[in-house]
Every structure is written in structure tokens, then in C-alpha cells.
């Protein structure tokens, strides 16, 4: 009954995913056997680089599952990264930094919700507005000559981190990377097993039907956008407070948009999106490794294309049409 409610995955896809999963796993195990250090390095890096994408995708997914198309994630991330960093500098507390980063993400969400849900403005336009606004504000008010006070560091779980392979990869990680993994599964659970999830999906598919059952589609959309903002905010905080440690103008560098790609790739399901994000992160890490090892002496521009090419190929050849939520992009007006 759960699968039924998800965007349809036809059996061919499932087989493909299953087989490629097996294949990938065996490759990883093999390379771990050959050179454990490098393998761990690659996997750690993949997980790390997939984090902002996965979080961004969660934001997009929660909005879109309730029928709101959010292309403003990039901007939400940027704002979050900015405020998170500022607060961290002012208070000297990374925790406060992260919290206010999240708050900023949600605040941007509220603005977006006011425009899309309350004012029924076109959702693509609202997303673009958020992006412009974020770029403008963070650039215009960019504080010169203030300096970071460190960043979130990796934490090793006792015992667990000693396990081979999974230990260093999964249990010697920095907080946001780790919590992302948990959040992915949490959101998946919430989306498919709880009242909130059922209503969210109903509103996304057919808001009128939800409305006749006494569910106020617009309210659902409103708070879902804000919840989405939480994840975009966390992604931003990750960039400025965990990954880098400082804020720089435009430091999101299009990750918000790749997150959208990842979300669609994952067929609007959290775990699917996470898988897509991991694949993307893996491709990024692998291309770096190819440069490290100089195994093949081709210009780095080509190895650099790897992640993008893989995405297109997988999408074009293996995955059939992705079906978005039915009411996506349409402001809901009562009759």
C-alpha cells in the first residue's frame, strides 16, 4: 500500500536498481580489499559531498509532495549559510550558529509560503525571487574582515568506529553528515506511515479531494514549506559551519539546483533521493581520485564531467519517466 502511493516505479527499474546496487557493493568491497585507505577516503568524501544535496532534496521533496514546486532551495541554503556563520561569529557558538542557520532557512520558507500559498503567486517565479533575494542580501551585507571560529568536527563513536569499512565511513563523521542519514529515513517514515505524510501526499496529488475531507490544503502546504526550510537551512549550515567553516558569497555554487535534480532522480522519495545524492557524491569523489592517481592522463575537464554524464545516462537509458505529484505547481484556489 505504501509503494502504491509512491511515484510509480516499474519493475524494470527495480531490477536495474537492485543489480546495479549489487554491482556497486561488490566493487566497493573489492577495492576495499585492494586498498582500504583509499576506499574509505572515497566513501567518506562521497557521503560528505552528498550531504547538502540530500538535505536540499528533502526540502524540495516535502514541498513538492504537497504540490508546491520550490526552485528557491539554492537561495534558502545561501541565506542559512550566511546567518549561521554570522551568529557563530557573534556568539562564538557553533550550535547557535546551526540553529539560526536553520531558522534562516525556515524564515526564507515562510516568505516563499506567503508568496506561493497566501498570495497564490506563480511558484517558479517565487523560487527565482528567493534566489535573487538571497544572492543580493548575502552579497550586500557581506561582513568584511570578520573571521570564523572553527567548524563542526568529526566525532568517532566508541567501538562502532573501529569496525572495518563501515566504521570510519559511517561512525567517524561530523554531526550534520550523520544526522542527514537519520533524517532521510525519518522523513521517509513520516511521509509514508503517518497522518502528516498521508495528508501531505493527498494534498500534493489532489488538493480538492483533501479539501472535501476537511483537510485545508493551503495550510498543509504552508507548514510543509516551512518544514522544508528546516532542511534547506541545515544544508546551508552544513556548508558554512561544517564543510568549510566560513561563509563566502555564492558558496552554494548551484548545489540547490543539483538537489532538485537529485530529488527528481530519486522519484520524490527520501530514500530514493538519498541514493541519487550518494551516487552523485560518489561520482564527484571518484573524479577527484582519478586526478589523484593520474591513472588515466586525460584533461581534468573530462573527469570533471563524470558526475553530470552519469546522471544523464542513467536517467536517459535506465529510468523511465518520473511522475511528479499531480497538483505540482498549481496554486490551490477554492472553487
Amino acid at each position, binding site marked *: 500500500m505504501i509503494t502504491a502511493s509512491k511515484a510509480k516505479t516499474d519493475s524494470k527499474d527495480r531490477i536495474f536498481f537492485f543489480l546495479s546496487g549489487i554491482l556497486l557493493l561488490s566493487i566497493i568491497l573489492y577495492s576495499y580489499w585492494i586498498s582500504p*585507505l*583509499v576506499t*574509505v*577516503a*572515497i566513501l*567518506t*568524501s562521497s557521503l*560528505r*559531498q552528498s550531504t*547538502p544535496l540530500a538535505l536540499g532534496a528533502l526540502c524540495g521533496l516535502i514541498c513538492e509532495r504537497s504540490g508546491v514546486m520550490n526552485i528557491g532551495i539554492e537561495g534558502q541554503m545561501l541565506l542559512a549559510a550566511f546567518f549561521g556563520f554570522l551568529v557563530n561569529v557573534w556568539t562564538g557558538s557553533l550550535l547557535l550558529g546551526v540553529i539560526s542557520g536553520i531558522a534562516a532557512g525556515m524564515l526564507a520558507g515562510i516568505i516563499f509560503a506567503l508568496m506561493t500559498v497566501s498570495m497564490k503567486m506563480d511558484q517558479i517565479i517565487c523560487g527565482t525571487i528567493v534566489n535573487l533575494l538571497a544572492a543580493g542580501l548575502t552579497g550586500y551585507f*557581506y561582513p*568584511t*574582515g570578520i*573571521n*570564523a*571560529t*572553527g*567548524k563542526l*568536527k*568529526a566525532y568517532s563513536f566508541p567501538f562502532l568506529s573501529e569496525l572495518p569499512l563501515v566504521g570510519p565511513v559511517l561512525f567517524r563523521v561530523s554531526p550534520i553528515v550523520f544526522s542527514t542519514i537519520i533524517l532521510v529515513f525519518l522523513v521517509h517514515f513520516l511521509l509514508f506511515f503517518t497522518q502528516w505524510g498521508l495528508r501531505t501526499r493527498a494534498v500534493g496529488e489532489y488538493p480538492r479531494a483533501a479539501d472535501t475531507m476537511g483537510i485545508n490544503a493551503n495550510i498543509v502546504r504552508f507548514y510543509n514549506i516551512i518544514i522544508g526550510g528546516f532542511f534547506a537551512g541545515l544544508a546551508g549550515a552544513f*556548508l558554512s559551519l561544517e*564543510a*568549510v*567553516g*566560513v561563509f*563566502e*558569497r*555564492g*558558496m552554494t*555554487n*548551484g*548545489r540547490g539546483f543539483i538537489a532538485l535534480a537529485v530529488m527528481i532522480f530519486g522519484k520524490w522519495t527520501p530514500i530514493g533521493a538519498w541514493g541519487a545524492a550518494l551516487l552523485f557524491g560518489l561520482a*564527484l*569523489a571518484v*573524479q*577527484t*581520485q582519478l*586526478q*589523484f*592517481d593520474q591513472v588515466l592522463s586525460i584533461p*581534468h*575537464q573530462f*573527469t*570533471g*564531467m563524470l558526475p553530470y554524464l552519469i546522471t544523464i545516462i542513467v536517467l536517459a537509458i535506465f529510468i523511465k519517466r518520473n511522475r511528479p505529484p499531480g497538483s505540482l505547481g498549481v496554486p490551490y484556489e477554492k472553487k
Partner: protein
Amino acid sequence: ENHAGCGEKTKFCIGLVTDVGVIDDKSFNQSSWEGVQQAKAELGAAIKYIETRDAKDYEQNIELFAENNYNVIVTVGFALGEATIRAAKKYQKIHFIGIDQFQGKPVKNLVGLVFREDIAGFKAGALAAMLSKTNIIAAVLATDMVPPVAAFNRGYEAGSRYINPDIKIISTFHPGGLDISFTDPEWGASTAGQAIDQGADVIFSAGGLTGNGGLIETATHKGKYCIGVDTDQWDTVPAARACLVSCAMKRISPSVIKLIKLAYKNQFPEGNYYGEVSLSSFHDFEGKIPQRIKNRLLEIDNNIQSGKIKIPDYE
């Protein structure tokens, strides 16, 4: 408007045009500007800068100063090379300083302030090779399309090999286009992380914000060293102090001041002016670095001066 009255005997005006990017890039825009600011302090000059947003605006931004009869115009970055030459030919009376702009055929009121990044890189490489215990060192680089970065890298590899011919150098360029390769700290950081995780213990991180990301990341790993570029990033990137042994510096500010003063005294040179390059002081690591390494670096320095060491030059 403080540029009123520029051009009169009594007033000495200096303008600076950045490359696409921001003045406080903790890198060469910033250190060029610091040079100009010092000139203000010493010569009481009126100073002003314009950040370029769009490569199409180089010409216009330079002209904004020229039209207001500034005495010296500093243009930062090789990308402004052509625009600067054209401006110099058009405004004969104004002195132009083109940073990182190698002059093919000299123009009399324009000097290209250039640096031997390969030498700085060589020293950095030597230092890295001597510091490394794992015999794996890494370089995190913005792009190979920008001559200075490429030169840094060439020197770095040569220098480390000079110390230890079979050292493993794992180096990467940013996979994206030139437009983001200098402004992607996240990539710099995660790449540095990936290098460290596979045993690299010295990271040479070169290229604007991307490089800074690499430095800061390295600082979060115990017992690893990182080497910065361009300025003494001890001051510009404090977050990296935990690992920052030294920086392959291009002494931009002092050279800028020197050239401005020459302009002030009307002894402005033409063609190319080679600015000084060197390793910055070791700061907190002063005590930790054994004397023999320091001696070795001095010896290398002399050998380069005397030409005993040849660095493979531009391809």
C-alpha cells in the same frame, strides 16, 4: 566625492580595479588593495577601488578612474591585461600597474608586476617533502587555466621531487569551469579531506576561496600541515592557523607600494617588474621545525639565486 580635484599638483590619486571578484578575497585583490592603502598612509594619497562584476566592464572601470585624472591606476589580475594596455596607450599621462600581467612588448606608462610563482612553489614543495612523514603530499588547486596557479603547481612538484624523487604527490584541479573554480571552498575542503584520509600529511592549497577551504579543512585534522599561497594567510585565514606552516607568498603589497612611490617620484619603470616571492615565516611552527630543514631551505634559496637549481619553465 573624494576624487574631486584629482589631477591637480596638490593631490595624488590612486585607483584600483579588481578582477571579477571582491576586494576582500583574502588573496591577491586584498593584498593589492592593502598596498594601495599603505600608499595612502605614506603619501597621503586619495584612494578608491571598483570591484568588477562582469568581465565586460574592465575597460569601463579603468576609464572611470582615468576620466577623473587619477595619477596611478592599479589593475589586478592577468585577465585585465588587454584592457590595461589599451587604457595605458589612451591615457599617456597616467601610470598603470598591472598585477600578474606579463608584458610582451613594453608600454612606457605601464608596468606589469609579475612574480616567479614557480620559485615560491618550489620552496613550498621542498618544505612539504621535508615535513611529510607518510611521503604522500597533496595539492588542492583552483584551475590549470590560470598561469600563476599552474606555475605554483609546477614549482611545487619540482621542489618536492628535488627533495625526495619518489614522493607521492596527489594533486587536483577544480573539476568545474573557471567561473567557479576560485570560489568553491566546499570543494576545496572536501578534496583536502579526501587527500588526508588516504595518507597525505601536507596539503598545498592554492586558489582563492577554493584554496582557503582546503586550508581550513586541513586545520581540523591533527598533525597535518598545510601551505597557503599569495599572501601570508596566517593573517587572512586565521581558522587555518592550526596547520598553516607557511605560505608561498607573492609580496604584492610591498611591490605595489614601491611602484607607486616610483610613480610619485616620476621614476616609473616600464615592461615587467618582478616582485619578490618567498616563504612566509613559520609563525607558531617556528619552534617545531628542525633547524636542518630551515638550513636546507636557505641552501635551496641560494641555489635558485645562483641558478644551480633549474625549474622547468612555462610549457
